[in-house]
């Protein structure tokens, strides 16, 4: 087993543990800490897959911006920041649904090579060319969506509602 495969197994284990812990701990601030570790872990997986630009983007957008936004959301919505959530037990139906979804996805993907495959690395210059030429419309769509989101967010939180 190569060092990359070991690194992947370790990163996958950390991703699963932090994702479960984020949803099961009862203090919301601890949830944010777990989910921040999860985002950094996913960015490490991007670096492992030879996608450094995406890794940096994941660190900046998710581990940076989204985490701080979520913390801000907690800060303004509760009187005591470290208060505990009411315990919500693990109910059978959603758990069964999640397990069925997992099995369904793995089964639906179908035949995959069972051995390790080489990962191709790309020059980031070609990524920018692909992003702005071939997939340019998607980027424009993202800009339009963000404009709409800004307008919508301001409408939602404006003063003098009701």
């Amino acid at each position, binding site marked *: 087993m190569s060092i*990359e495969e070991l690194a992947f197994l370790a990163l996958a284990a950390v991703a699963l543990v932090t994702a479960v812990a984020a*949803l099961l701990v009862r203090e*919301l601030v601890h949830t944010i800490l777990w989910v921040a570790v999860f985002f950094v872990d996913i960015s490490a997986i991007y670096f*492992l897959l030879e996608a450094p630009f995406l890794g940096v983007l994941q660190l900046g957008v998710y581990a940076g911006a989204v985490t701080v936004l*979520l913390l*801000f959301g907690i800060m303004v919505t509760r009187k005591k920041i470290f208060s505990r959530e009411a315990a919500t037990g693990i109910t059978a139906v959603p758990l069964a649904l999640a397990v069925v979804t997992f099995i369904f996805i793995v089964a639906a993907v179908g035949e995959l090579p069972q051995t390790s495959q080489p990962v191709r690395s790309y020059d980031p210059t070609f990524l920018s060319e692909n992003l702005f030429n071939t997939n340019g419309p*998607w980027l424009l769509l993202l800009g339009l969506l963000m404009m709409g*989101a800004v307008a919508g967010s301001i409408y*939602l939180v404006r003063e003098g509602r009701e």
Partner: protein
Amino acid sequence: MTDLPVVGFVALSAALFAIGLFGILTRRNFILILIAIEIAMNAAILNFVYFGAFSGGTGGLTGQAIAVVLIGFAATEVAVGLAIVLALNRLKGTINVAQATDLKL
């Protein structure tokens, strides 16, 4: 050039998506639901990146470009979600989704 197991990545993202789905279905706090959605979204974005990385030609770059756009989508979604959290908190005094029943008959 590094060698990595394809099946492991499919299993990882499927498991992460299942965890996110479980969180969306069971949690009652709006912020926790947003976090569960983010976990599921990350699992989906991971798919584009690794199927791109294992494919030949320029397919890998298309996968990465779509992943860049999707990361932007997810960040936008969190921003709007938190605006809804703030509005809900102002109207109801709580961010428990079980209390948001204004549209129920």
